[in-house]
C-alpha cells in the first residue's frame, strides 16, 4: 500500500516538469488566444472587450473564400501525398537490387531544414531561368517562360506540389512499414492459387493497409492544414491572395497588421477545425484498434 502511494507521488513528480512546460508554452497561450479574440488588442496600450465583434467581422465573403481555399488546398495535397506515397512504398517494397539505397534516397526532403528545400523549389519555379519552365520550353510544351509563382492558378498548384514533396517521404516510409507487416503467407497462398500481382495488390495489400491509410491521411490532414513555411516562403499568400490559407491569413492579420484581436479570432476558428480533426483522429484510431482486437 505504502509502495503504491510512494509510486503515485513519484510518477507525478516525473511528469510535473513536462506538464508545467506544456501548460505554460501551449495551454496558456491557447486560452489567451480565446480571451484576446474578444478584445480589440493591437499595438495600442488600451485593450477593450468588444464581445463577438471580431467574429462577426471576419465572417464575410473573403473569409469564407479563405476557408474554402484552405480545405481544397489541404484536400489536394493530402490526396497526392497518399497516392504518391503508396506508389513509392509499393515500388520500394519490390525485391530488386539497390532497394535499401533507394529507401534512404527518399528521405532527404523530410530531414533537411524545410526552409532550404523550399528555397530550391523557389528557384525551380522561376519563370525566366528555372528548371521547370526551362525544360517545358525545351520540350515544346509551352511557348514562352512560365513564372509559376506569378499567377494565382499556377502558384496554388506550385505550393501544393512543394507541400507534397515535403510530406511524401514520411508517408512512404510509414506505408512501407505497414506493407511489410502484412503476413507473407497471405500473398503466398494467393500466389499458389494463381492470383496476379495486380489482383494480390488490390485484394490483399489495399484492404489490409486500410488502417494505415486512414491513420496517415488524418495525421497528414492535420499537418497540411497547419502548413505555413512553404506558402510563406514561396508566395507569402499571393499573388492577390490566391495562396492565402487560414494560417497565412492569421499570420498576416496578427503579425503583419498587428491586429492581435482579429488575428486571435481567426486563430480560434483554426483551433476549432483542428480540434475536430483531432477528435476524429482519436475516435478512428480507437475504432481501428477495437477492430484489431476482434
Amino acid at each position, binding site marked *: 500500500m505504502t509502495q503504491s502511494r*510512494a509510486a*503515485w507521488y513519484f*510518477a*507525478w513528480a516525473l*511528469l510535473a*516538469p*513536462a506538464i508545467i*512546460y506544456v501548460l*505554460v508554452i*501551449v495551454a*496558456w*497561450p*491557447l486560452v*489567451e*488566444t480565446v480571451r484576446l479574440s474578444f478584445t480589440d488588442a493591437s499595438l495600442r496600450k488600451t485593450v477593450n472587450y468588444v464581445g463577438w465583434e471580431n467574429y462577426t467581422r471576419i465572417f464575410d465573403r473573403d473569409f469564407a473564400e479563405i476557408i474554402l481555399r484552405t480545405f481544397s488546398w489541404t484536400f489536394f495535397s493530402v490526396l497526392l501525398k497518399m497516392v*504518391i506515397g503508396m506508389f513509392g512504398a509499393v*515500388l*520500394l517494397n519490390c*525485391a*530488386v537490387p539497390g532497394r535499401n539505397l*533507394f*529507401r*534512404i*534516397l527518399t*528521405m*532527404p526532403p523530410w530531414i*533537411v*531544414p*524545410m*526552409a532550404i528545400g523550399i*528555397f*530550391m523549389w523557389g528557384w525551380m519555379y522561376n519563370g525566366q*531561368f528555372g*528548371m521547370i519552365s526551362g*525544360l517545358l*520550353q525545351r520540350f515544346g510544351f509551352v511557348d514562352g*517562360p512560365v513564372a509559376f509563382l506569378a499567377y494565382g492558378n499556377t502558384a496554388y498548384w506550385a505550393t501544393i506540389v512543394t507541400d507534397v514533396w515535403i510530406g*511524401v517521404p*514520411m508517408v512512404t*516510409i510509414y506505408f512501407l*512499414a505497414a506493407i*511489410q507487416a502484412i503476413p507473407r503467407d497471405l*500473398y*503466398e497462398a494467393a*500466389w499458389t492459387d494463381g492470383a496476379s*500481382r495486380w489482383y494480390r495488390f488490390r485484394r490483399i495489400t489495399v484492404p489490409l493497409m486500410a488502417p494505415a491509410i486512414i491513420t496517415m491521411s488524418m*495525421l497528414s490532414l492535420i499537418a497540411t492544414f*497547419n502548413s*505555413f*513555411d512553404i506558402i510563406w*516562403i514561396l508566395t507569402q499568400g499571393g499573388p492577390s491572395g490566391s495562396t492565402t490559407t487560414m*494560417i497565412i491569413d*492569421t499570420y498576416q492579420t496578427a*503579425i503583419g497588421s498587428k491586429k492581435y484581436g482579429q488575428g*486571435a479570432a481567426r*486563430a480560434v476558428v483554426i*483551433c476549432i477545425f483542428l480540434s475536430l*480533426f*483531432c477528435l476524429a483522429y*482519436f475516435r478512428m484510431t480507437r475504432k481501428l484498434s477495437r477492430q484489431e482486437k476482434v
Partner: protein
Amino acid sequence: MMNPSRRATRVLTLVNPFSKRAQPSAMMDRYSWYEIVLIYLGIFVFLFFMLAPFLEGFLVSLKPLSQLFSTPYSFWPENGSFEAYVTMWERIPYFAIYIFNSLLIATVATLIVLALVVPAAYAFARFSFRGMPLLLGAFLAVSMFSGAVLLIPLFRLMRTLGILNTYWAMIIPGAAFLIPSAIWLLRTYMMRIPPELNEAAYMDGASQFYTFRRVILPLARPGIIVVAIMTFIGAYAQQFIFALTFNSKTEFMPLPVGLFAFFGRQEVIWNELMAASFVGIAPALVIIFFLQRYLVGGLTAGAIK
C-alpha cells in the same frame, strides 16, 4: 475512454523496413524482365521527384551567374566551378554565425526536451494511475496544433519575459512542440524494459528514484539516443516561424531565416544562395548517411505522433 497504450502495441508490430526479416524468400518475388524495367522506371520517376530540387540546387551552385541568368535554359553547368562556395562567405557575412546559431538552437532545444521527456516517458511507460491515459492523449494533441495559431500570446509572453530577440525566444517555443513525439517514441521504447526489474529493485530496498536512475536509465540509453537524434533533426529542420517572428537581430538568426533575408531581395545571387543552402543541409545529410538504421525505426514510430 481513449486508450493510447493500445495504439502503442500496434506501432510496435510494424516491421522496421530495413530489417533482414523482410528479405525476399519465395519464388513469387521473381520478376519477368519487363516487370523489372517497369519497377526501375517507377523508382526512377519517384526518386527524381524527391531529389530534383537538390540536383538542380547543386548544379545552380556550380554555375556562374552569367550562365544562370541566360536563356535558353541549360541544365548542365558550363565552366562550372565551386567559386560560389568561396564568394558566399563574403556576400553573406553572417553565414558562419547563422550555422552556429542553428546548431546552438537545435542543441539546447534537444537538451531541454530530453530533460523533460525522459522522466515523463518513464512515468507513462511504467505507471498507470488515474488520469494518465488522458494526460498522454493531451500531450499528443499538442503536436496537432502548430505554433502559428499561438503566435500572438506567445509573442506577448516572450515580451513579458523580456526574451524577445534572444536565442531563448526561438528555443523555448520550439522545444514545446518537439515534446509530444519524443514522449511517444521513448515511452514505446521504455515499455520494453521488463517490469520485473522494478520489482527486483524494490525487493532489494531500492527507492523509486534510485531504481529510475541506476536501473532504468542505463537500460534506456539506446532509446534515449534515438530520441535525441530525432529531436535534434526536428529542431534543426523546423527553425522558421518562431525565428521569423520572435527575433529580428541578425546575429541571432538561424540559417533558414538568415538565408530568407537574401531570398526576398530583388536581385538574388542564386548560385551563392544555393551553395549556402548546401552547406546548411550538410549536417542533416551526414546524419542520414551514418545513422539511417536508427533513423528509420525512429521515423516510423515517430510518425504516430
